[in-house]
């Protein structure tokens, strides 16, 4: 699996198929990226579970925080990790102990741990690193085009008017796969020099 650049089909199949997402490191502070992503994914119909031992007893968009993945007490499809690269491995270890384990490990924009990815993939999980599911959902649906972002998708079809809480179609035709070639190269250089 090449983690420097993802094919859109890979990201699309993950976002089309997962229903429940446990977000490790979710923050109730409304200027943190994890809060943005949690809220957006919840509004697009995902079953979101906030995981953060520091906030047990509080709620995020009406969902109670749990302290750890083990405390969720039901199967989940994806673990979205909002932690620095150095804190990824223990979360992956914990996820792999779940029964059944999740189908997908997703590491947030800026986070990458190749050893943890390898371990999860060896156990049959899909892995995404250094991406934001909100941005990818917005990109594949072209909703993010409203901000001048290059969605790298085209469509000649009339899309429904997006309303609150609606799942958007992610099935536009894609080219090149997600990021641009230049930004992928830059990300790869950065990984290699740090």
């Amino acid at each position, binding site marked *: 699996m090449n983690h420097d650049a993802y094919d859109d089909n890979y990201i699309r199949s993950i976002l089309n198929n997962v229903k429940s997402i446990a977000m490790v490191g979710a923050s109730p502070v409304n200027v943190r990226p994890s809060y943005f992503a949690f809220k957006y994914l919840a509004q697009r119909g995902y079953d979101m579970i906030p995981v953060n031992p520091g906030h047990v007893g509080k709620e995020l968009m009406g969902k109670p925080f749990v302290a750890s993945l083990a405390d969720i007490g039901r199967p989940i499809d994806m673990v979205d990790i909002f932690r620095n690269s150095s804190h990824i491995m223990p979360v992956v270890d914990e996820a792999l102990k779940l029964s059944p384990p999740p189908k997908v490990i997703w590491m947030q924009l800026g986070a990458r741990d190749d050893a943890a990815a390898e371990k999860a993939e060896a156990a049959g999980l899909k892995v995404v690193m250094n991406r934001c599911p909100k941005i990818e959902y917005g990109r594949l649906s072209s909703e993010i085009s409203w901000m*001048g972002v*290059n969605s790298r998708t085209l469509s000649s079809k009339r899309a429904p008017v997006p309303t609150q809480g609606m799942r958007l179609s992610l099935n536009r035709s894609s*080219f090149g796969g997600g990021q*641009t070639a*230049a*930004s992928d190269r830059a990300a790869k250089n*950065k990984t290699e020099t740090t």
Partner: protein
Amino acid sequence: MTDRLPGFSTLAVHAGAQPDPTTGARATPIYQTTSFVFNDADHAASLFGLQAFGNIYTRIGNPTNAVLEERVAALEGGTAALAVASGHAAQVIVLQQLMRPGDEVLAARKLYGGSINQFTHAFKAFGWNVAWADPDDVASFERAVTPHTKAIFIESIANPAGSITDIEAIAAVARKAGVPLIVDNTLASPYLIKPIDHGADIVVHSLTKFLGGHGNSLGGVIVDAGTFDWSKDNKYPMLSEPRPEYHGIRIQETFGNFAFAIACRVLGLRDLGPALSPFNAFMILTGIETLPLRMQKHCDNAKAVAEFLSSHPAVSAVNYAGLPDDRYHQLQRKYSPKGAGAVFTFSLKGGYDAGVNLVSNLKLFSHLANVGDTRSLVIHPASTTHSQLDDEAKVRSGAGPDVVRLSIGIEDKEDLIADLDQALRA
């Protein structure tokens, strides 16, 4: 459904646009409105807090402008773009994200005259310093880098003489200095040169020129290559530090590889205010659909005119990189193989008076201060745009008394040559 990579012409027609969800309109509608209703209070708060995608107010974003932004980003191979009111507005917004009083931008000496003015005089009032280097001598850039340097600024094809810049060599200087390379790609357009492929971190355009292409609408655009790491060494606090106006959001952390375009929008355009009219965005978008066709015709016509002039007895020199013996011909073949653009200068044996005469004798060429129109344009810089400089300064900036600048249009080349021929004889 990762399909084949669409070609440039397909992107020029389709990228960013889709049938209007509400009406099914196939052409991009002109959303001529100042503001957009919110669904409810929470939606309004999410939009203002940058938590949700959507429209608030046309100074910050507009659906017509967004199509233009995505289209230019796609054509340039960038992650995102921001459209603004003019090329000059794009330049000031880019540097506002990078510069603090006392900082320095290192710029190529060969730039559009208006940019030289903006950098020298307007930016001085902001406390931004400019260091100049010679784009024909890469080592002069290396020598001019200081600890205060925050960006390097060049033109891919430089106005007025159409000289070609060695983008990769200067990109290497920028990388070594740890600063972004900004390339003004106005005279090339992405049809001829894609600076991001050669190491540019930010591309700016005056959309007024070839992209709009019809001489009817001002506009500018900023393209984020998504290549620069803004958080390194805290050199660019607008991107890496918590922003007080957004309750502590860090732009790079939140927006990743299109953070620069977002900073330009929410910290630059929002606060400085040079928004592009949606009507202009529509005109420019329509222009871009035919960019590949027009640009090739511009180049083919320009080459024919340059060849004609270079063998004309009244002409002492032609500066056109498309001519085999031009000093920029090797760089043109490397960076701009489809053509050398349509803006170039030539010199008249008869000096200043001959230049003034030529301009007044032309019947098809329009005498005006613009480039990149469907129509062919002419200007005699020494008696107009550069008239305030002394003779030595005129020569140094490529605008000596005997120099005439042309911007070749998409008319029939035979008619352009005939017009020049009669005007040179008259």
